[in-house]
């Protein structure tokens, strides 16, 4: 092939790549921070809201789940600012998009988890005089959350992979940094390969941790919700 590989250029710019990785993790972390509680809220509304609430919430969840995240991101970055007349920077647009997007997926995980709890638990709580919110908070959710953990973490990994999209609106995540280093050094193949390897290492580590946890939870007698 005759191509001379030269990774030295990449390693001279390792600080930029690391900064990109940190930014990737930052967006992922914030999206999780907002997305998980919002997902719980959406799930509860979809399960226990009245009809006027259930339908629109269901629609929002399905819409966010079946449209491409890049279309959502572009909508929030390019379209929404015109609509409400407020400038939004790439970072905020990213966090907003991925919080909402992941909340829809988390809502379904929560719903699956809550529905997987045997109805006897509800009846038992009712028998000792708990109302619905008490039952949810004290009996159902603590059991449901344990079952949801693997599905949850898998979703978080998916989310981290999806955040690479933020590079398309010029937020300096790992992929964006790689792209700009590639453009200034012409070492495209080395830079992209190293960036891919960095993603691989981080995500694989997470995947392995999830699989371990899954096995341990399975051993402790908990069925797993997907």
């Amino acid at each position: 092939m005759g191509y001379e590989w030269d990774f030295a250029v990449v390693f001279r710019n390792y600080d930029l790549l690391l900064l990109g990785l940190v930014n990737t993790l930052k967006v992922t972390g914030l999206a999780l921070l907002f997305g998980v509680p919002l997902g719980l809220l959406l799930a509860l509304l979809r399960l226990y809201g009245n009809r006027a609430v259930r339908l629109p919430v269901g629609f929002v969840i399905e819409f966010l789940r079946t449209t491409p995240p890049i279309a959502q991101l572009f909508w929030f970055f390019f379209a929404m600012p015109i609509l409400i007349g407020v400038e939004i920077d790439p970072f905020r647009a990213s966090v907003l998009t991925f919080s909402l997007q992941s909340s829809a997926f988390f809502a379904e995980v929560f719903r699956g988890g809550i529905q997987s709890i045997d109805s006897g638990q509800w009846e038992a709580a009712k028998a000792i005089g708990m109302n619905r919110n008490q039952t949810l908070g004290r009996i159902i959710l603590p059991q449901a959350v344990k079952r949801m953990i693997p599905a949850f973490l898998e979703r978080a990994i998916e989310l981290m992979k999806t955040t690479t999209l933020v590079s398309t609106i010029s937020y300096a995540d790992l992929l964006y940094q790689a792209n700009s280093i590639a453009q200034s050094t012409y070492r495209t193949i080395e830079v992209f390969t190293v960036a891919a390897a960095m993603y691989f290492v981080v995500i694989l580590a997470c995947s392995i941790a999830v699989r371990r946890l899954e096995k341990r939870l399975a051993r402790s007698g908990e069925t797993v919700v997907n």
Partner: protein
Amino acid sequence: MDHNWDFASVLANKTLLLIGLKNTLVLGSVCLALGLFFGLFVGAARFSGKSWLYYPATAFVELFRNTPVLVQIMWFFFAFPIIAPFKIDAFTAATLGLTLNTVAFSSEIYRAGLQSIHKGQWEAGKALGMSYWQQMRRVVLPQAVRRMLPAFMNRAVELFKMTSLASVIAYGELMYQAKVVSTISFNPIEMYTSVALIFFLVLFPATILVRRFEARDTFRR
């Protein structure tokens, strides 16, 4: 807040959007067909238990499952042409990235499906004098594929959503067409809203279908 919605500008460009939708469907279908086809072999390789098949197949699957698909597409578009002996356009790069990604994910579905079939089915096939691939094709796969169907359809929905990433490397699918039109006619709101709606209208029926299949399966078990 006082934005005047102007969908006339979207309709005026509907030919461009339709071309985009067509390209989205072409890209998605090609990657789905190739991905499901090669996924079977990778899945079977991981299932076989022979270490010279298992380890390379596993390495491949882990590599493509644990890197973002956008990175894969960009790698095939920007990096791969440098060492590739042939020219790579946006369609080829997107097809490579998305297909290999689909191969990796679908191979796991095949593997799980194959594992769910009772060993007695293989043995019965063997007792009739069938070879490994005959047992696979005539006895095991027909049963396994039924169970795998919902998972495959989920994967297909994911894949069609992922085709929108090809817009990043300027392949003229729906998202890219919308981007181009919106910069010319200054209507990003209407354009991106329409794109989201189109994807929703195409993919939502598919997700309902998946749920039907899943419900039917649970019922039967």
